[in-house]
């Protein structure tokens, strides 16, 4: 007999979780943002080099097909935007293979919302308001450019420091060999190990102006100060946890198709399986998606912080280990 049938969250925690979700829904209802539900399965997956999608084979109207469990509801929601939905939000189950730990679970709840006509700054404000709803004592907001904490904590500029120097610094901080690693891997490691733990203590820290190479589905633009190309995205951190990741959304279908292809080329080079590309999203962008901003927020982490828990498992009915 197995004796680990009990939930990973207490029943009282699940009651509090339900209240948090109700508050989130009320927040968007008040602002006229429509709640939607989109499929967990899709004909395409995320091509992002650092996301591992799960797929399965199922019988569909077209026969036996491979379908992908969505790593976020982004593609389907953008198709709704292009179809004229106006502002929408979703509390969506999302799946990412291999992501297991204190702050990760194989499947988790993503709060994702899109605001046609919003600038990135507008959406940073709204994300802050949403976070304050559950964390009223989070402290003031600090807006910082990606390069600032690197300068402060590591004495380097992530955009201009030579790759050799970055590799040396990263190897030293992580106690591993990064001699062959690309620039972004070095920056990701320094961000995770050195900078992230310092963010969001007594404040809501928002990081903007990421390297253009880390744009994912965000627009790229030129920094007005020194002309460096940066990604128009932000991330919000509280208590050392990355909570939200927002983009000034790419609306150019051709550029989107090119990024999908580039991602799959990177995947092939890294020996990772290729992922079916979402040509319906490309078609939707070509038909015209309204300009605007969108953000994805890890609800389990936000609730974890709101309830003062140590891991996401403690706010989930059944974490993957015992699902």
């Amino acid at each position: 007999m197995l004796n680990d049938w009990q939930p990973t969250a207490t029943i009282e925690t699940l009651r509090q979780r339900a209240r948090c979700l109700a508050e989130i829904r009320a927040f968007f209802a008040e602002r006229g943002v429509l709640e939607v539900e989109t499929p967990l399965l899709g004909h395409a997956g995320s091509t992002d080099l650092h996301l591992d999608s799960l797929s399965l084979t199922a019988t569909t109207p077209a026969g036996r097909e491979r379908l992908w469990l969505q790593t976020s509801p982004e593609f389907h929601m953008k198709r709704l935007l292009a179809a004229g939905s106006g502002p929408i939000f979703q509390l969506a189950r999302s799946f990412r293979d291999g992501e297991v730990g204190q702050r990760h679970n194989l499947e988790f709840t993503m709060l994702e919302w899109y605001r046609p006509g919003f600038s990135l700054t507008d959406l940073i404000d709204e994300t802050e308001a949403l976070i304050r709803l559950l964390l009223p004592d989070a402290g003031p907001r600090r807006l910082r450019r990606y390069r600032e904490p690197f300068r402060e904590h590591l004495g380097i500029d992530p955009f201009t420091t030579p790759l050799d120097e970055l590799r040396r610094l990263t190897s030293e901080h992580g106690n591993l060999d990064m001699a062959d690693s690309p620039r972004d891997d070095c920056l990701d490691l320094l961000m995770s190990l050195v900078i992230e733990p310092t963010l969001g203590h007594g404040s809501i820290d928002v990081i903007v102006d990421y390297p253009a190479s880390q744009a994912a589905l965000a627009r790229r633009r030129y920094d007005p100060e020194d002309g460096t190309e940066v990604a128009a995205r932000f991330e919000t951190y509280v208590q050392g946890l990355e909570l939200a990741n927002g983009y000034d959304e790419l609306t150019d279908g051709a550029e989107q198709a090119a990024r999908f292809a580039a991602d799959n080329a990177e995947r092939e080079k890294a020996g990772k399986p290729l992922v079916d590309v979402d040509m319906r999203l490309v078609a939707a962008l070509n038909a015209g998606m309204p300009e605007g901003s969108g953000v994805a927020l890890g609800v389990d982490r936000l609730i974890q912080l709101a309830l003062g828990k140590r891991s996401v498992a403690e706010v989930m009915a059944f974490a993957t280990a015992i699902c």
Partner: protein
Amino acid sequence: MANYSTNEFKAGLKVMLDGDPCNIVENEFVKPGKGQAFNRVKLRNLITGRVWERTFKSGESLEGADVLDLEMEYLYNDGDMWYFMRTDGSFEQYPVAKKALGDTEKWLKEQVPYTVTLWNDNVISVSPPNFIELEVVETDPGLKGDTAQGGSKPATLSSGAVVKVPLFINQGEVLKVDTRSGEYVSRA
């Protein structure tokens, strides 16, 4: 031995690192939402006992270490090697060098079962049971009636360990001792 990829890492897994067998003590998955994933891992070197902290890129792998924990009774020593015997009925004996014995040397008693760790069939460490009963071979005379108050004195046990004991303990008494802290628990 098999290779283990970072996604198979978990506490208790035995792997090779820098040529030494190690036990994974802690494994933490670290990843920026859209970025390279890493595992921050604490490993105990099973030969030196030292704890290493390393970071691995997701997808890297380590060779498994052929490490086995067996229960064995202590038999005797010949001044050069210490001899232990398996308790599984095979009566197989293993010689243990002083270096592998380490601190456990001061907790040795015949016929007590120890956890003996083998790597490639060689003994690399020996752990005593958490509690062991040993006789006091030397201590200052006990103070009659002083059974409650604090105050302690050193006592040498039959295994060679020196522990702090209450003042009322006498030579020849058998004591229960916690080998992890080296502290007196009670009279046996």
